[in-house]
């Protein structure tokens, strides 16, 4: 019993921390609300889809930036997709860096090619970093959830 409570407390603390750091926002709460008996793994499914989708998009972005002549329209489209996905699951910081990325791309008329390419690569770097951060954290979160469920407790969602 104690361990369950402890685990649950750990889970709660961890989640609160994620919210505090701005990694997740209210949308994640909404997702958790959608999880019920008829749809018990909803959150995990959505987040897994997000991981797959994002990794695909990040690969595309990296490839696109390595081209001789970079197609910024395509890059913009990819980032837009990533932004949409991250906002759908509530990955706030990923969303934010995507917005910044798009803003940089819009200024392409003004800056020179090389500078823009470098800037885009820097943005991509940032996105990748935020993404891996949120991925690690969410994976840890899910592991904690599993532990709680295994110990016989229930997940105190939503908050």
């Amino acid at each position: 019993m104690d361990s369950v409570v402890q685990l649950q407390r750990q889970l709660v603390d961890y989640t609160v921390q994620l919210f505090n750091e701005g990694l997740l926002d209210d949308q994640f709460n909404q997702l958790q609300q959608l999880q019920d008996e008829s749809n018990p793994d909803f959150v995990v499914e959505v987040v897994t889809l997000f991981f797959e989708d994002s990794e695909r998009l990040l690969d595309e972005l990296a490839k696109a930036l390595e081209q001789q002549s970079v197609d910024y329209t395509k890059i913009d489209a990819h980032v837009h997709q990533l932004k949409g996905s991250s906002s759908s699951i509530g990955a706030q910081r990923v969303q934010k860096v995507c917005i910044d990325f798009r803003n940089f791309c819009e200024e392409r008329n003004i800056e020179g090619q090389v500078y823009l390419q470098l800037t885009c690569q820097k943005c991509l770097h940032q996105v990748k970093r935020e993404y891996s951060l949120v991925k690690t954290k969410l994976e840890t979160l899910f592991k904690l959830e599993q532990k709680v469920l295994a110990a016989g407790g229930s997940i105190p969602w939503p908050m």
Partner: protein
Amino acid sequence: MESCNCIEPQWPAEELLMKYQYISDFFIALAYFSIPLELIYFVKKSSVFPYRWVLVQFGAFIVLCGATHLINLWTFNMHSRTVAVVMTTSKVLTAVVSCATALMLVHIIPDLLSVKTRELFLKNKAAELDREMGLIRTQEETGRHVRMLTHEIRSTLDRHTILKTTLVELGRTLALEECALWMPTRTGLELQLSYTLRQQNPVEYTVPIQLPVINQVFSSNRAVKISPNSPVARIRPIAGKYMPGEVVAVRVPLLHLSNFQINDWPELSTRRYALMVLMLPSDSARQWHVHELELVEVVADQVAVALSHAAILEESMRARDLLMEQNVALDHARREAETAIRARNDFLAVMNHEMRTPMHAIIALSSLLQETELTPEQRLMVETILKSSNLLVTLINDVLDLSRLEDGSLQLELGTFNLHAVFWEVLNLIKPVASVKKLHITLDLAPDLPECAIGDEKRLMQTTLNVVGNAVKFSKEGSISITAFVAKSESLRDIRAPDFFPAPSDDHFYLRVQVKDSGQGINPQEIPKLFTKFAQTQTLANRNSNGSGLGLAISKRFVNLMEGHIWIESEGLGKGCTVIFIVKLCIPKRSNESKSPFLPNANHGQSSFPGLKVLVLDDNGVSRMVTRGLLVHLGCDVTAVSSSDECLHVVSQEHKVLFIDVCMPDGFEVAVRLHEKFTKRHERPLIVALAGNTDKVTKENCMRVGMDGVILKPVSVDKMRSVLSDLLEHWVLFDTM
């Protein structure tokens, strides 16, 4: 032998006499010959002599006379007959000519005399013209002086410069000894010496304004000669034997601005004048000429005009400066206000977040506690903790709301809820407190009160709780009764709410709630103050009262938002009081299952829209999955597609709602195609846009392609629920951003 008619000289001894006669005749002849020559010469020289032929005649006459005398020379001695003949001829001719000349002269001399008269006349005329020329020149010079003076005076708008320039120029133009200006003092009873020409720092003389000489000058608009001994002229010390020059004084009208404000034209009676005194140099025997006086009068008028301009300019500059100051002050105040608002908003935002975080922890852990094994008492306690914490979260939200309420940016969250349950919940919450105070509470719900209603449940609850809470707080003993019923038209028009004209109709009703207590009552005069923020009346302040006083203010605003009215009736201190509010609620068209209105964390497994066929179009996989999950959670039958072609292929009349992500490149096009495919409104699904931002352009685009509503992504469960309710009720979504 011819007879000799010649007379032989009797006295041969008179040869001397004859010699003298001889010589005289010779010289006479000479003179007689030279005179015409001179005449001819000079006449030839001059061209204007009109009497040429007279001259010829005269010349002939003289010549003949000369000839006669010349011939006479030969007659002194023996002479021949020829000589005699010649002599006779010449004498005859001479006689003729001289007679003719004499006759002619009779005509000519009057003419010649009249020439002289004409000459005299012309000379007079010339003299007169000269005089007039002199006058005109003087006048023209005066005019020039005036123009120059005017130009000098009018080229500056500075009062001091104007007056100084006037004096200087006048002094120069008219070569004055002294020129002085007396201005009326503020009291208007005296004239003060303000400016002089020669003296640099005039001693501050004053003379009373009612002197006869001053009145004389002020009563006429002409320059008036005054005595050098009058007090206004005695500016310089009289140095003994000098005979002072003539002095002239003229009035200078001072136009005050106020003259133009009362009527259109300044009134004569309120005119003020200054006095300008001009003194000619002493001992110069100069006199004031008319043109000089005229000059002075003209200058005085010009000075008046220039002074009035200067006064107007001063006034307008002052007004402008004042306005600029006010502008600066206002700008400063505005910036301060803006800063204050920003600071307040920042503070609220931060505090909001800071307050929510521990609240989340409390709620989460209380929920956890609920899941564990508890005794019934413990369970009750935990439940109360949870409810209180939720209430507190609501309160925190409402502190933010209040600022949003004041900005006008708060909107009600409409939803279907159980109306009866609201009141029971309030009762349950307040019962513990009331029983501690031994107050008896009754709840009376009218039989015709609908069980379900559409409105902002949370805020209705908050308002009711606030009102009831106040009743409990301010009653030490007795009972409190809560009644709720549907307000009928007659009771709607209450004299206490004179500008409240509700119009009941089929789809909404007015809920009237009365909370009556038997507590302290309120002084009727204090009632208006109660609804203002943070105000607490003196009589109510006692040990037990606490709270910031926001409650009634917030409640009033909520009631207003719900298109209602709230007021308090009390007969006075000690007679209890009744709080009444009326709010507008909508009647739900379909009966919904009741759900617990209070705990937002209650299970959401219930569906509000069983079997509703919905289509979702979104090209983003994650987004699509989330929206789908959301709708499935609400019980809908969801089909999710990722391309517009697929969407148009799949869509059918059975689908009631279509959600389109308008960030897709062809999102809007789908809406257009849909309108083409389903021409009749009831055949096609309702189209709702899921948009990433809510700016005007997006909304307009959605309206343009004929969408039925727009929602901002990401969508919460509650939001989606209310959206669907609204949609299905009204067939169109109002602004739900």
